[in-house]
């Protein structure tokens, strides 16, 4: 395959929307973090730009790689994912109470981001083998078990957000592979109900829970953020203040630094709220529109895919992006608990940006190889 063919395989809308989001990210970072590194006002913006370039290269690599090859490598990929997650637990870098990073040379690397891709690659295979014959819970069990292992590992870090993202991807893939929507919904609602019951028992009767205290308080703060506005509800209130301060067009450049200082994790978890502050409702709705374009194009590509495995991979990648968007924006606007999931292409961070572009690569690979074949 030549570079020219690779270029032709690019989906203009998809790439355009993703790059537009990247541009918003770089501009927002430049506006909101001028004082982070003294003497280097564009520090984060520049680094994000570099990660975007690296992400594009990773995307090209993933595009070039046919899904067949990925499918053959599914176990080594899955195995590597689990090893990396274990490595994090054994001697990872701890940041703000969560052990999520491992050092590779000068870089810090967050294996939980890549774990999501690894899970897609192997789940698509397991589910595709059912050839649509997923009748009951029994048929879902192998896929659930495969997803559960990395979920438990990331929860141990603790990273509740990633575990929920993997659970979401699992649900979408179970459905797309032929599972009954109602049964899947019942399974998820039942699990959620059980969790609520356990938390209630924990709070009223001291029932032991494998959740960290901060995770629990965040869940509870989600229910009532004003109960403790300076504690766990603080993040959400500050996020909503940032969004509302931005109003329609965003605040003026001079006002940003004072206002942004109140917003925790403004460059990562609350990147969407940062965007709201600097660009207002206009910027936020534009970003949501661009996400809709990315996911819409991805689903179109999945629909056109003839291969069952490839279609599941593309749907999985689209689900990954969608769930990230929903959880991040939902978190910033108070429809989701604060669980620390990055906004695709908007949040600062190498692992996250590269993972998002890798997901794009998985999607575009389907299109490229289909296009490629049709031109043969």
């Amino acid at each position, binding site marked *: 395959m030549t570079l020219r063919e690779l270029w032709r395989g690019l989906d203009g809308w998809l790439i355009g929307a993703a790059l537009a989001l990247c541009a918003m990210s770089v501009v927002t970072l430049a506006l909101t973090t001028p004082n982070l590194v003294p003497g280097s006002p564009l520090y984060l913006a520049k680094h994000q730009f570099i990660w975007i370039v690296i992400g594009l290269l990773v995307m090209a690599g993933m595009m070039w790689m046919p899904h067949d090859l990925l499918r053959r490598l599914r176990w080594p990929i899955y195995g590597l994912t689990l090893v990396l997650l274990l490595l994090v637990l054994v001697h990872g870098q701890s940041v703000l109470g969560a052990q999520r990073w491992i050092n590779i040379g000068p870089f810090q690397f967050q294996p939980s981001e890549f774990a999501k891709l690894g899970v897609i690659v192997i789940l698509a295979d397991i589910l595709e083998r059912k*050839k*649509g014959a997923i009748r009951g819970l029994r048929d879902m069990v192998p896929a659930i078990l495969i997803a559960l292992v990395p979920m438990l590992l990331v929860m141990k870090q603790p990273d509740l957000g990633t575990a929920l993202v993997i659970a979401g991807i699992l649900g*979408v893939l179970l*459905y*797309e*592979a*032929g599972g009954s*929507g109602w049964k899947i919904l019942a399974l998820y609602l039942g699990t959620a109900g059980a969790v609520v019951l356990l938390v209630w028992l924990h709070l009223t009767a001291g029932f032991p829970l494998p959740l960290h205290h901060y995770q629990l308080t965040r869940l509870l703060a989600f229910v009532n953020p004003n109960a403790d*506005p*300076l504690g766990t509800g603080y993040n959400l*209130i*500050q996020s*909503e*203040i940032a*969004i*509302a*301060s*931005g*109003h*329609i067009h965003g605040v003026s450049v001079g006002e940003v*630094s*004072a*206002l942004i*200082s*109140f917003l925790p994790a403004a460059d990562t978890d609350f990147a969407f709220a940062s965007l*709201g502050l600097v660009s*207002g*409702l206009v910027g*936020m*709705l534009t970003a*949501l529109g661009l*996400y*809709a374009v990315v*996911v*819409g194009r991805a*689903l179109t590509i*999945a*629909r056109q895919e*003839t291969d*069952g495995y490839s*279609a599941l991979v593309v*749907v999985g990648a689209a*689900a990954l992006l*969608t769930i990230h*968007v*929903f959880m991040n*924006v*939902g978190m910033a*606007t*108070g*429809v989701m608990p604060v669980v620390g999931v990055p906004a695709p292409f908007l949040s600062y961070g190498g692992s996250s940006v590269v993972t998002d572009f890798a997901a794009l690569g998985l999607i575009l690979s389907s299109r490229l190889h289909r296009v490629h074949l049709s031109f043969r």
Partner: protein
Amino acid sequence: MPHGERERRIRILAAFGLLLLALLVWRVVAVSLVLGPPLVRLGDQFRIRTMPVAAPRGEIYSRSGKLLVTNQPSFAAYYFRVGGPPSAAEQKVLEADLGISPQAMAKALFIFSTEPSLPVVLKSGLTPAEMTQLLQGLPQLPGVFVNPEPLRQDLLGPVGGQMIGYVSRVTAPELASWKLPGLTAASVVGQTGLELAYQKQLFGKPGGEKIEVNAYGLPVKVLGTTPPVPGDSLTLTISKSLELISAKALLADMASLRQRYGGQSAVLAGAVVVVNVRTGAILSMVSEPSYDPNAFAQGISTTAYQALLDNPGLPLLNRAVQTAAPPGSVFKMVTAMAGLTSGKITPTSTIDCLPRYWRPPYPYNWLRRTSTGPNALPQAIAQSCDTYFYAVGHRVGINAMAAWAHKFGFGQPTGVDLPGEVAGVIPTVSYYEKRYGSLYPGLAYSVAIGQGADEVTLMQLAEYISALATDGTVVRPYLVQKIVSPSGQVLFNATPKVVRHISAPLAYWNVIREGMIDTTKPGSIPGPGGTAGAAFINFPLQVAAKTGTAQLPNGVNGSQGYMTFFISYAPANDPQIAVVSTMQTISMVAGGMIARAIYDAYFHLNDPNPPFPQVLPPAPTIGTAARSGAAAP
């Protein structure tokens, strides 16, 4: 699975995705336009802080326009509660830099539990060292600000401290009760004396500086400033030089008595008041021991404050107005007037002045052991013959004496413009009956010489002697002559206030005056001398006076104690000013020397025998003396 089924499921997923998108769009719009704005206002409470800019309190001037109380530039550290007390680390820095304990912090925060956007003052009057340390530490101390704050400065220091009064940081109950514009927990208010009496005029109107801060509590920009309006200034009736002379003379007399009677405990306390007899304008007012109001303005330490409370001389008390005591013999002019007007005595009638007045079952003694023969009223006053007045008291009765005491202003506050003035007590027959069940024989004798249950204040005695000087004009004493706004507008100008005219034949006033003039006549008793003669030997001015000594039931420091009074006016033939003084001491005589020193200074007499020559300079150099320093503590 057929391709068609896969496509259908993707469409359903896409629809589900659109549903999520719609939810997010709704939520983003809702937060941006509806749910968020109230939170923005909440956030402003943390982001926008109003730093009150204290208004300089009004200045206080002497009668001739000399500055007495002013404000000096100073800096204070303020703290905004951003969501609770400072963290342990911040508390550590605060304690190291400013010595602010967690307890003090908790107390400061308690005061201002009502208004989260207003600061509390951590420490005022920062020293340069504290300023440097604090400014370096500020980045680690979100919520701590350093701002200028005028510091009250009383240039007289402890001289007349109780009259000027002190200011201190407002307390929580004061914050609630004072209705002053712009009053916050960071404000300073008057607590006693003139600072309290003229609170509304002196306070001014604090300004404010709206500051935007970031999450670390560091100022980002000033959003707006309202400049403070200084308080109105007061011009007192007080003469600065006379005030200093009064304090020096009082302290010198106290010191000489201590020297003579063996030690500090011989004199507990004393006070002096000088008034214009015709207008009631107070020219000086001192009460010793005193305190330095500046110590309060700077934030007095607990130990220093406790020392003031423990001092047996009660330095916080203004002995001119806030305490009353039996008047002793200075009351005798009341008895005399009651006798004269009732016809029980005449200006020329005499009564034998015996050492003992015998009315069964009790003998009433006079202090002196010898008889001075038949006394007419002037001699009885000048030599303070108790037995003469026992007889007069017996003849006129308790109620007649009480009625005359009331006419002279006893038993009621004088209305002087100072807080906490006590009314004193002038008992009538029914008062004694209520208190003791029945009158014991001879009570009227005690009342006649000011040793009954009567209690008077020094201020009332000043009003009384002024009335005696002016043949019956009772004027209200006052301290503030003028109130001037910061723009120079005169808001108030005091005019003398005549409370009442006591009508009595001029002959009666004159015969009493004659007795009071004779009081300062040198000589022995028996003989031509008066009780204050020794203090006025070779004095070039005729002074009318009366001495008084009342026994105190509880004594002074366990030994026998007296409340001595000396009331006087001069010149006797053309009265201008009155000098009254009191002392709580084991000595029976005090005050003449003080009055002599004050008259000497006021009338520029060049006294040939100045009292306290080692302390007080001769008269022509009053001005320099006044400037050269404050009295001893």
